[in-house]
């Protein structure tokens, strides 16, 4: 139990009052920037880097870990209450979370997000402590063909977010896929669908699109209804806290979300969004109340929230063991390490053991602090919804615009926000789901790049897509997801016919 001793040593470093204070500041800042749409943890760490230079390495890294976890958690608050995802990883949370909040169940939604994040963070941090060396070996075996298989799996399960009509869902998905084509093609360096506008060369920003589609589209829709609007938002209906039934329906999604988030987060090109999509689909498929999905099912909040926090810990696996930064925030943390002349990588665990274990221990501390900080605040957060509707939506507009401008101060981005907001409004008005747009925008470019990369390496031979056992395994899961339910029904029908006879 060498790791265990080392962890205890790390905990003793992290619970020093001064380091606890840094963890607190980090969590607080992280939650704040997570709540603001557009401004992500990466920018915050970048801004703080020069400030923390005066601190000791342990203290500043502990603070960065707090910002990272806090940002992941804070994103869910604005998703649930305001239908305005703060981060791309909390887009899925808005689907069910906001429906719950409108039905007066914002309290349980925020609670299941907070506790789910805590549980996932805890389990994933334990996994990081003990499994990092093995997980990273598997992660390195993932080649472009395997990533493509993962994207295919994500696409097969995407219909869970379609709502009522498959045709409308597919239409929305294809809008997203087309938006994803805009900009410089990474494989050839050529511009596509940019129409000579330099600002479009880097493509359409996911967070801008999400904020526009969800927040602006919704606000315009509500405004267009005006006094015809019947629905009233009740801040609290029933208990502010989770009921026994909420707990019973949440704990399995937390565990499943963690199981998806941690390994995919550890993949160098895995990211935090894909596990949230997969978790949402899995919960919808496994739920005993599938009819509640789209109307505020607590599983749809619990699973994806656990998944995005677990992936945040997963990202630290390649960072600490290989020195591979696989997200913008991880890249900033790497810069933070380098600032002190520490090079994360295979040698870090042996050369700077106390620091690494201090960081891992501080993740535990940050996680606990998040829960302590956020649970008492839930009562205050849900009061936001008792603000009169014109003020509330006016506030959301200001908030969304400020966040977008804060992340990318350009008139063009603002115009994009407005244009996509109008699109979101039109889709909302004609009853098209908006989530598939965002999913297409995220998955489309990833799938395309990985497919073309795999084919370029094999010089055009498509057999390379099915060569590795990882890819074959993932395709097998796809087949089960696609044909399993149909076969199951057939078997049941057959049994049904034979039994009475």
């Amino acid at each position, binding site marked *: 139990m060498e790791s265990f001793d080392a962890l205890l040593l790390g905990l003793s470093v992290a619970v020093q009052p001064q380091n606890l204070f840094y963890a607190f500041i980090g969590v607080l800042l992280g939650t704040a920037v997570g709540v603001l749409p557009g401004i992500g943890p990466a920018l915050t760490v970048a801004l703080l880097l020069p400030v923390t230079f005066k601190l000791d390495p342990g203290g500043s890294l502990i603070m960065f870990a707090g910002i990272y976890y806090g940002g992941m958690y804070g994103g869910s608050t604005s998703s649930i209450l305001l239908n305005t995802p703060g981060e791309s990883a909390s887009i899925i949370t808005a689907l069910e979370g906001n429906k719950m909040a409108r039905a007066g169940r914002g309290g349980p939604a925020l609670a299941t997000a907070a506790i789910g994040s805590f549980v996932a963070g805890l389990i994933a941090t334990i996994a990081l402590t003990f499994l990092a060396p093995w997980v990273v070996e598997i992660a390195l075996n993932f080649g472009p063909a395997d990533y493509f298989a993962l994207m295919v799996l994500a696409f097969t399960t995407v219909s869970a977010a379609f709502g009522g009509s498959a045709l409308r869902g597919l239409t929305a998905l294809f809008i997203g896929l087309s938006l994803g084509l805009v900009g410089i093609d*990474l494989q050839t360096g050529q511009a596509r669908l940019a129409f000579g506008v330099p600002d479009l060369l880097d493509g359409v920003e996911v967070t801008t699109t999400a904020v526009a589609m969800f927040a602006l589209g919704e606000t315009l829709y509500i405004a267009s209804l005006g006094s015809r609007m019947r629905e009233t938002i009740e801040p609290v209906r029933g208990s502010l806290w989770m009921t026994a039934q909420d707990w019973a329906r949440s704990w399995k999604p937390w565990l499943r979300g963690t199981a998806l988030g941690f390994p995919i987060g550890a993949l160098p090109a895995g990211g935090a969004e894909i596990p949230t999509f997969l978790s949402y689909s899995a919960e919808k498929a496994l739920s005993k109340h599938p009819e509640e999905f789209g109307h505020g099912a607590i599983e749809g909040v619990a699973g994806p929230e656990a998944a995005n926090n677990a992936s945040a810990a997963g990202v630290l696996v390649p960072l600490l063991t*290989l*020195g591979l930064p696989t997200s913008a925030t991880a890249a900033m943390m790497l810069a933070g390490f380098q600032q002190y002349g520490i090079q994360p990588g295979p040698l870090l665990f042996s050369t700077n053991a106390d620091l690494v274990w201090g960081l891992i221990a501080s993740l535990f501390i940050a996680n606990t602090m998040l829960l302590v900080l956020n649970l008492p605040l839930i009562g205050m957060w849900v009061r936001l919804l008792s603000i009169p509707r014109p003020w509330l939506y006016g506030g959301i507009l200001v908030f969304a615009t400020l966040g977008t401008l804060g992340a990318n101060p350009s008139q063009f981005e603002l115009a994009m926000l407005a244009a996509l907001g109008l699109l979101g409004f039109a889709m909302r008005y004609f009853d098209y789901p908006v989530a598939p747009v965002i999913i297409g925008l995220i998955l489309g470019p990833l799938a395309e790049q990985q497919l073309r990369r795999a084919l370029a390496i094999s010089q055009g031979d498509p057999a390379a897509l099915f060569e590795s056992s990882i890819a074959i395994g993932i395709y097998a899961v796809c087949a089960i997801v696609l044909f399993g339910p149909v076969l199951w029904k057939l078997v049941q029908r057959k049994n049904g016919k034979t039994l009475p006879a």
Partner: protein
Amino acid sequence: MRVLFKAAAGILLAAAAVLPVSAQELSIMAPAGPGGGWDQTARSLQNALQTEKLATNVQVTNVPGAGGTIGLAQFVSQNKGKADALIVGGYVMVGAILTNNAPVTLDQVTPIARLTGEYEAIVVPTSSPIKTMGDLVAQLKADPGTVSWGGGSAGGTDHITVGLIAKAAGVDPTKINYIPFSGGGEALAAIVGGKVTAGISGYGEFEQQVKAGKLRVLAVSSPERLPNVDGPTLKESGIDVEVQNWRGVWAAPDITDEQKASLISMIEKVNASKTWQDTLATKGWANTFLAGDAFADVLKQEIEKTTAVLKEIGLVK
């Protein structure tokens, strides 16, 4: 009383005359998102200027997009004739301007200095049958398509270097099988995991993996062997290619010669300062400082050379 006023005014004037530079306000644009090389250069420059009291208030702004060309366009349109604005950039921008056919180019800003540079390294996993640069070139000559190169974005420094290597080895640059990756981490994972034949990037990206015995350095793109790097130069391996991924700093268009000279002298002071030298050491950046007209001349040659090779790869028409 009047005498006292005069004396006070005189002291103030004298003080003002002594402190013309140190009272300066500056803005530095990093034409990239936070965290990348240009952002780190801008923020290190900010830190050095303030610590060394060469400027009192330095602001860094990030304008990400399209290899720095979005930031460059905004910098040029907003700062004409302003002596208190700097923009950080580098070799990647030279390539990006060409491949994107950018409306605003580096001809429209005032070169101040090249600050740092990094050399490219060509690596393979330790388990690879390819032992030397000679082995790799032999395979490249036999069948260029079978050598997949993993590196950064299309048309970037890594891609350009591969094009130059092919050209120098007598291989048609349009035949190279270059696999671009978006982030450093993703490329490194594919290289270490043996998904591509060889990897190419700044040596710093590979250093830890090389030390840990996971990657083997075949060659580096420097004029002479690098200290602490166990690998020959491309020239030693019979490939006449030298590439430096440099970063530098420019001032606004239409500034006066005096303003230009004063900015150059300020950056020279930064370069000589302990703060800056310490930063270079901790970040592992090579000091390839080159100021003023000498930098402008080198820049011109680099743009010509890069235009030629990008045309040959087929990325620029």
